[in-house]
């Protein structure tokens, strides 16, 4: 038996017997100082190493049972929850986690057995299946919003019903427009949630802590602005660097000092890379829209092999202004309302066109994740808007979570065809 088949046997064993207990054991094993040290050595980039070690520590905290747990959708103001020392589970991360573990087949099958239609988004289906299979700790709170899509509102409410915590389910209703009435409406909801959760946790609502969280979030923003400014000219990235790998710290851990520190490390690392970049380095610059597949895949390698480099992602753009620490609820409301995925599609188009100009991109890719109505529904307008600026767009049909719904050969052919076109321009 070779090392390869031995490794595969262990993976199969883990996948076949995966439950919350075995996840705890795996996390405990990896957290052993020696294993943790060796694990850290496997990363080529400093920020990647910090991210992975940090994520692991965080996951251990999520599973240890010492912290209140909240499930939350991607774009809610996590500063608020982090200030209350709650540990968080995000469906997009849950979906990615199940994809990374290779158990999506099981979680999706569980969702299907519970009448979730296969027409629905795999992130939410997989997260529902995983929650139903008790792969994640039971939540004390569930918080979601309709930013950027309807899916979280419904799938999370169903989870709240399953876990019998409907009195601890909060839906943040995001207004379509961004005006004073919208800020008032949203800010009021955030304030109510903060005070209600504090009451349910039987702690005194600590707005000072919230202000600190907002301040940390501002630090993260400042570093991210520098990161993005560096990336406008950077082509020579650390190996395996991918902006889309940083969803958990960018959103879920916003408001923590560690997340701000991670972006500080990233800023430093990328600036060094830029300083050492050879002036002769030439590649086609791409903008990436939506998320990426979270299972093992070759998309970014294929792009590299074809002289293309993703230099910016719509999701890592700094769309919000610096927050006023003294007005945390209004500021967080404003941050949510500034998100280009809210409301009118023109918000997203404007953000994309502005990034296209700033990064001087040659082409763009929209990863058309199965079942994502809000993103894919805008594809034609995005294509036409970018075509007006003479920027080609590849609409890459696939699935971020279910690799069986994303044939690798087909993706390769499409990416190579697209790369051939943009390299000839």
């Amino acid at each position, binding site marked *: 038996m070779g090392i390869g088949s031995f490794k595969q046997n262990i993976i199969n064993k883990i996948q076949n017997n995966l439950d919350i207990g075995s996840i705890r054991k795996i996390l405990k094993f990896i957290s052993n100082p020696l294993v943790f040290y060796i694990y850290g050595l496997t990363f080529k980039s400093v920020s990647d190493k910090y991210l992975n070690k940090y994520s692991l520590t965080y996951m251990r905290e999520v599973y240890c049972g010492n912290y209140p747990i909240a499930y939350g959708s991607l774009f809610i103001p996590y500063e608020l929850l982090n200030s209350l020392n709650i540990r968080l589970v995000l469906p997009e991360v849950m979906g990615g986690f199940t994809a990374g573990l290779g158990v999506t087949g099981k979680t999706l099958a569980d969702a299907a057995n*519970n009448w979730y239609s296969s027409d629905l988004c795999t992130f939410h289906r997989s997260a529902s299946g995983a929650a139903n299979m008790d792969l994640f700790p039971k939540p004390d709170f569930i918080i979601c919003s309709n930013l950027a899509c309807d899916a979280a509102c419904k799938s999370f409410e169903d989870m709240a019903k399953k876990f019998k915590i409907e009195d601890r389910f909060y839906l943040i209703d995001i207004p379509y427009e961004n005006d004073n009435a919208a800020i008032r409406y949203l800010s009021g909801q955030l304030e109510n949630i903060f005070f209600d959760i504090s009451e349910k946790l039987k702690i005194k609502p600590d707005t000072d802590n919230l202000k600190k969280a907002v301040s940390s979030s501002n630090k993260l923003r400042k570093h991210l602005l520098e990161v993005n400014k560096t990336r406008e000219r950077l082509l020579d990235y650390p190996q395996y660097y991918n902006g889309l790998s940083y969803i958990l710290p960018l959103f879920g851990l916003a408001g923590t000092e560690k997340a701000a520190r991670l972006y500080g490390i990233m800023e430093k690392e990328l600036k060094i890379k830029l300083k050492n970049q050879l002036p002769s380095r030439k590649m086609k610059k791409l903008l990436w829209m939506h998320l990426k597949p979270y299972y093992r895949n070759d998309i970014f390698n294929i792009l590299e092999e074809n002289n293309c480099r993703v230099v910016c992602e719509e999701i890592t753009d700094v769309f919000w202004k610096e927050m006023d620490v003294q007005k945390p609820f209004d500021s967080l409301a404003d941050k949510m309302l500034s998100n280009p995925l809210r409301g009118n599609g023109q918000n997203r188009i404007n953000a994309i066109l502005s990034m296209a100009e700033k990064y001087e991109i040659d082409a763009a890719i929209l990863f058309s994740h199965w079942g994502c109505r809000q993103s894919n529904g805008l594809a034609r*307008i995005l294509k036409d808007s970018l075509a007006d600026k003479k920027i080609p767009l590849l609409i890459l049909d696939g699935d971020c979570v279910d690799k069986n719904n994303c044939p690798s050969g087909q993706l390769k052919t499409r990416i190579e065809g697209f790369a051939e076109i943009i390299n000839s321009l």
Partner: protein
Amino acid sequence: MMPKIYEFFKNSIKSSSPSGSNKKIAGYSCSYIPEELIAAAGFIPYRIYGNKGSNLADKYFPINFCPYVKAVWEEIHHNSAFDSLVLATSCDGMRRLKDYVSYYEKELPVFMLDIPRKPDKSSLDFFADNLKKLWAFLCKINNIDPEETERIKISTTAIDRKRMLLKKLTGQYENQYENEGRQLVTSSDYFNIINISLNSRAEIFNDELEEYIKSIKPDIKNNSRENNFYKNSLEIMIVGNYLNDDNFWSVFENLNVRLVSSDLCITYRYFDIESVNQNETMSGNNDIFDDIAYSYISKPACYRMAGISLKLEQMRTKISDNNIKGVIFASLKFCDNTLYSFPAVKEELNKMKIPSIFLDIEYGKSSYGQLKTRIEAFIEMLGL
């Protein structure tokens, strides 16, 4: 072929055509959009039916996208009959529809009504504020002073009467006696009448519906089981979204069932709305927009709204009150709000031991023969 019932309502149908009136037409898309505001601003409110026959929208939208949104886009893109549009933030699909209208139909005035998802006080205030913005938008197009809110009270009279008559019709349909084994109001007729009500002038439709209701009164004297004038068909509840498809309703022809307490965008969610004029203080304020906001947010909820448990509780009550034997859950394909709600509905029905069937509807393009076979098999199973 046009259903026979259309002959009875020919004036109503004529009133919705652009040539039948010198009034402007405002297309609208959702039961949460108050048609009384559209009518008060001098428009004919026209619930957009969509062009179901065409596949041209596939050039714009992905394959796995709401067929109703696609059909509506077809109608808007290829039909210049609308003078303005009022859409609502019902779902992601509708948000994208608004984007397509704004991007490709720049000349067409379009308003997006933001509907809150919760029924609390701040949501009601927010909704009332949005209704004021809608009113201002409509008034501006027709050069009406937005201060003339008396117009709204006048228009609610006709709309209220329409709702009252539709409820009466529903009562006749759901509790009707049968004549020689034949329903006096067939399922197909019932849903087609509702369809007509959605986009004809309320004043004209009301008169025709009143006449129709008078014409279907059974002969009470001979009303007995022996004379076969007694209801004996199977009560089935249908739950879903915007199922406005005469081909789908025709599937129920000659089946011995009545679709009772249906929970659809075109039935109770459309007409079971508390009248603004009946109780001026319903919102606790003396403001017409607050009152409209209150009455619309309090109406039977769509699955997009928060509060699935309340929705399930209402479903339970309806099932036991009406002796419902089975539930058809029919959803337009790719409707996230409905599809995400189905697991909870199914679980509840299983607990109640009520058989149910799930149907995916293509909106005008379904395989109706196949649907009929499935429904027949379901009904046969219920009858055992």
